[in-house]
């Protein structure tokens, strides 16, 4: 099977994560998995026809858009790897303030140079092309990537993870009586009790499982890097009020006050900012 690995606008962390799969990576490379195109590893300069294209990164420049369209036309199966490709990811934070305008003001006008112009927003790739499988995560865990790719290579549908991170986190949820929310460095967290019950803004109750909950296990809040779980995919506008309800129930703080406190930190949803969210409806393809 001919495979291409494409990087659009991203941090290259998803391909790094794939390389962290260790022996499982060696196994998959020993199978029918021939990486013929990948600017990171292979010297081929033109995008070839392949059976499987793995795409990390989203569309920030016109060059990204041109490339993803070409890749789609030349690939039988296309996998979006990581939250930038699937949802727009962290670079979408630039959509809040219009990075394009900021750059034009503070940097220079790329139109006058040889550089590709910026799109108006950061987009996930599904805004431009059809995607066969989505593997969200920032980055997705190595085992998740390798297991999913193995299934795809052998022609099977990969195992889906539909529920929320709380299912993989073993902390006890208790209704608490707190008077405010806490930042992660304000106090030390208890290892047994749900982080939300302790007043931390953990996004595990919204976020798709499949990662094994490494962040809550490390006493760090889940920050939603796997995107929303199935149950939230069709109700994008409800995500915020859903979170407020969860926090209010688990902390005993009134919904109004939770809302007020969250308002002070607009970045809480950084990976939940989905540009053109309405087009992202293929939930049976999210792994």
């Amino acid at each position: 099977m001919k495979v291409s690995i494409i990087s659009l606008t991203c941090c290259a962390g998803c391909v790094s994560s794939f390389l962290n799969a260790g022996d499982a990576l060696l196994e998959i490379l020993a199978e029918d998995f021939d990486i013929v195109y990948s600017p990171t590893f292979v010297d081929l300069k033109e995008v070839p026809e392949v059976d499987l294209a793995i795409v990390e990164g989203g569309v920030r420049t016109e060059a990204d858009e041109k490339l993803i369209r070409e890749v789609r036309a030349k690939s039988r199966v296309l996998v979006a790897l990581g939250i930038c490709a699937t949802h727009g990811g962290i670079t979408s934070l630039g959509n809040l303030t219009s990075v394009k305008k900021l750059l034009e003001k503070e940097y220079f006008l790329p139109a006058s140079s040889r550089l590709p112009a910026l799109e108006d927003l950061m987009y996930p790739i599904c805004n431009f092309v059809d995607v066969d499988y989505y593997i969200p995560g920032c980055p997705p865990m190595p085992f998740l990537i390798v297991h999913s790719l193995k299934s795809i290579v052998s022609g099977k549908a990969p195992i889906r993870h539909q529920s929320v991170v709380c299912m993989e986190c073993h902390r006890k949820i208790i209704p608490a009586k707190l008077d405010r929310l806490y930042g992660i460095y304000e106090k030390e967290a208890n290892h047994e009790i749900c982080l939300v019950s302790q007043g931390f803004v953990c996004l595990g109750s919204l976020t798709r499982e499949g990662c094994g909950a490494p962040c809550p296990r490390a006493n760090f809040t889940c920050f939603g890097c796997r995107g929303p779980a199935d149950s939230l995919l069709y109700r994008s506008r409800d995500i915020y009020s859903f979170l407020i309800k969860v926090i209010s129930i688990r902390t005993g703080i009134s919904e109004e006050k939770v809302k007020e406190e969250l308002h002070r930190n607009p970045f809480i949803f950084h990976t939940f900012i989905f540009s053109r969210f309405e087009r992202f409806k293929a939930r049976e393809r999210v792994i």
Partner: protein
Amino acid sequence: MSQRNEITISPTTRIEGHGKVTITLDDSGNVSDAYFYATEIRGFDYFLRGMEAERLPFIISRICGVCSTAHIIASVKAIESIFETEITETAEKLRELLLMGQIISNHSLVFFFLTLPDFWFSPEEDPSKRNIFQIMREKPEIGKKAIALRSFGTRILDVIGKREVHIVSVIPGGLINPFTEREQNELLKSAENACAITTEALNLGKELFEKNWPDFRKAGDYKTAYMALTKDDAMEFYGGRIRVIDYTGKALSEYDAQDYMEHVEERRYEWTYAKFAFLKALGWPKGIVQVGPIARMNVNKRVTTKLANKELEEFKRKFGSPAYATLLFDYARLIDLTYACERARELLEDESITRTDTRVQVKPKAGTGVGVVEAPRGTLAHEYVLTKNGQLKNMKLIIPTQVNNAAINLNVKDAAMEFIHQGEIKPGLLNRIEMVIRAYDPCVKCATRQANENLTVEIRNNKGKLLRILGSLS
């Protein structure tokens, strides 16, 4: 009317991130100019304004998935300097160990996956074969060793950082979790094997390097100043002071990390999204300076671990100090790797590293602060200005690839002039030019967090008419 010719390489391959090269030829077909540039932009410097310092480190790590740990540690150091936080010795040791894990996972990737194919195959080899996967087909044990070594590095990140890419345990004030004895024993077990593989990689690299040296030395040896962290004249990644030497090896300055921005300035050109950093005291272009593996060898007199120190002495004996040839970056990277493995083992053997005092409370306050570490590609600096509510007002990041940007461009031109004469392009030319870029292991992702870059090479005639594009994105 004169004909103006241009050669374009796009995308430049086997580097991290997207870049492009354009070489301009004069009337007689000789090189008149060459550019390496970035075509990508993301806007981190702008959209993070207003963010709470608490969230900054783990969001800023998204600048680069390859050296995310170095970014996080530079970030928390900057915040701690504003908050005037003194972290514990245990936390310092664990952070240094994390940096060693970062060096091991990065350098093993760069050596085996990115640059080894250049030494392994001849420059004239079919480009579709010139990669690690072909080497793995021919010699599967090389692939196994490459993965085992990288796994040791990423395992350190996973065990202590709690994730392999974009770690979460490092926060302002120290580390959330202490390092347990069970974890320590697990890592110690694989340290021995990692050190052994590193020695093999070093020997393999040296052997291939010596074979190709007459050829390699010609590919760019522009003389510049060098800069790196140093502690008592020895190589240092986490603490220490910054030392700058000129191209003759004379010390120009030695200063505290907090003063970084007073010594280094940036300029930009409209043809690239990546900025250029240089030494303020010398001005542009005299102040062009290089960082990274070669700079670490040139700036430091010694290394604190046994094997790596022996290798450093041999390196200085063979190539002089400072050493200039760009491809020596690849050699020096193997000495870095040797040090990182030895130092990681040393830290793991330290009984006090499992102490539980990894965290102190921080008191947010307003101010300006700088955090500096040696990242795999060289000295990395984060400067933040925080408001009294602990929100980010402004930030300035100077990333190794921005510092090396000027030298990369000059050496690309140097190499192009060596290999292109009167319009004749020797076989394997483009890869030779790419080898020069690859030696720096440039991280276009980091340098262009403001923009999205793609690496390409264009060939144009003197009227600017495009004759040929090597690569797909132009």
